[in-house]
């Protein structure tokens, strides 16, 4: 059928994915430590068009040999290239809760899930569980020095220094295991505010990150930008639909008028 219809449809599908992504960013506009997802779009591979014709030199022979003549390249539409997280710093808001820690800089907290897997998060709304472990909201244990979970003593004033040192009653007790990545693009979001290393992120101890006790990092999803993106993508979608309609009209016209035999 008409190639252009599929090309326009590919654009409409990408616009739809873009709106899906924006909706997720908006849904998480109040999620602590959330990093918004971006959508990168690229053109689908172009295809070379050839005109097939009978070779004039071979005319007269029993079977004319088809000769290919390059007409030019034809674009075939758009596709999603990547959906990277935007690790831009979120706003830091004071909460006054001693167990809330915000990170300023590129670092992540390391947490250990119940099954032993290590995950990374920017959400520093921590709790102290019934056994004294410092945990994330879903119970994952926050890792400290030597990647071992931090256990807080039953009593004592908790102070977390800017370098992540955990002080209890003014004495150094442990240190938050804040990490940075050589290639944060290799992290994948896993839900529950956690990221997982897909293997090539290059984890190392943090050097450029400061910890701020009594604060939380807000989501970096931007409502105004998302609204503008929503409008732009909706119009992009509409434009592709119009393109489909136009081609449909042309085909319809061809069917109804070209085939007409008498006026």
């Amino acid at each position, binding site marked *: 059928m008409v190639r252009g219809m599929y090309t326009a449809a590919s654009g409409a599908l990408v616009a739809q994915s873009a709106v*899906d992504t924006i909706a997720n960013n908006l849904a998480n506009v*109040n999620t602590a430590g959330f990093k918004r997802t971006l959508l990168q779009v690229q053109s689908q591979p172009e295809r070379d068009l050839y005109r097939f014709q009978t070779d004039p030199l071979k005319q007269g022979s029993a079977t004319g040999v088809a000769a290919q003549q390059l007409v030019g390249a034809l674009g075939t539409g758009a596709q999603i290239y990547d959906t990277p997280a935007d690790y831009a710093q979120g706003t830091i808001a004071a909460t006054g809760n001693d167990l809330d820690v915000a990170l300023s800089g590129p670092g992540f907290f390391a947490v250990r899930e119940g099954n032993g897997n290590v995950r990374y998060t920017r959400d520093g709304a921590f709790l102290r569980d019934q056994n004294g472990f410092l945990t994330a909201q879903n119970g994952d244990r926050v890792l400290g020095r030597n990647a071992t979970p931090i256990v807080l003593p039953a009593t004592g004033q908790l102070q977390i220094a800017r370098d992540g040192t955990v002080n209890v009653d003014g004495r150094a007790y442990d240190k938050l295991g804040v990490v940075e990545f050589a290639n944060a693009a290799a992290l994948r*979001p896993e839900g529950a505010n956690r990221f997982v290393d*897909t293997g090539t992120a290059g984890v190392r101890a943090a050097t450029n990150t400061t910890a701020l006790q009594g604060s939380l990092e807000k989501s970096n999803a931007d409502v105004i930008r998302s609204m503008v993106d929503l409008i732009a993508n909706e119009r992009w*979608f509409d434009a592709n639909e119009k393109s489909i309609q136009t081609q449909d009209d042309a085909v319809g016209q061809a069917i109804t008028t070209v085939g007409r035999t008498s006026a």
Partner: protein
Amino acid sequence: MMRALYTAATGMIAQQYNIDTISNNLANVNTTGFRKNSAHFQDLIYQNLRAPGTPVGPSVVPVGQDVGLGVKIGASEKSFTQGVLQQTSNPLDIAIEGDGFFQVTQPDGTAAYTRDGSFKRDANGSIVTADGYFLNPQITIPQNATSVQVGQDGIVTALIPGQQTPQQLGQIQLVRFTNAAGLAPTGRNLFIQTGASGAPTLTQPGLNGTGTLQGGYLEQSNVAVVEEMVNLITAQRAYEANSKAITTADEMLQTAVQTKR
């Protein structure tokens, strides 16, 4: 159908819960010993559209594609920051300055914990909460006693007619939890122990990091109205923004349907 519809719906549900929580905080802005709640959110799982390394023709995809599916309510966390102490003229109004809870006995005999120190005397002189629940350990004030005092260490004294020095009637004990945020609120300013809170540790006020007591004071709610107002505005705007995502998805679907005439 479009994921955006359902994704944005999770956002609206989450913000609705957020506003419910804020409303409860505001409703309890004058409730003695009330501890404010804050809603905590987490992103939902991400749907993997294409994994990194997927072969496409002769090459492989260098990066993957994920689309997030929205937000869920992670936790509703109680904040145990200190509330403002307000002076009253009643010696049995007791505020805790610092960490800890009063332990009271519910009518069914189980223990409950509270920061609300507006205690009363019942018909027998026992110290009870406003709902009539006994303070544990139970302390009884004789009918004819005067000038009841509660010390910082919780020792309750009173003058008995005919005696020169105040008589010691008992000592109020406080309990602490490893994870006070894990206590379950049951209403009436009471909390009960859960598996997440850990077991209660009974201590004297002022020892082992427990707070001290102030007789003649009440601890107000720790809700800060301005903070809640700001939260209310952000929650409402987030709700609106999510509704716009639904509208957009709806309009796109309408456009798609109208393509076929």
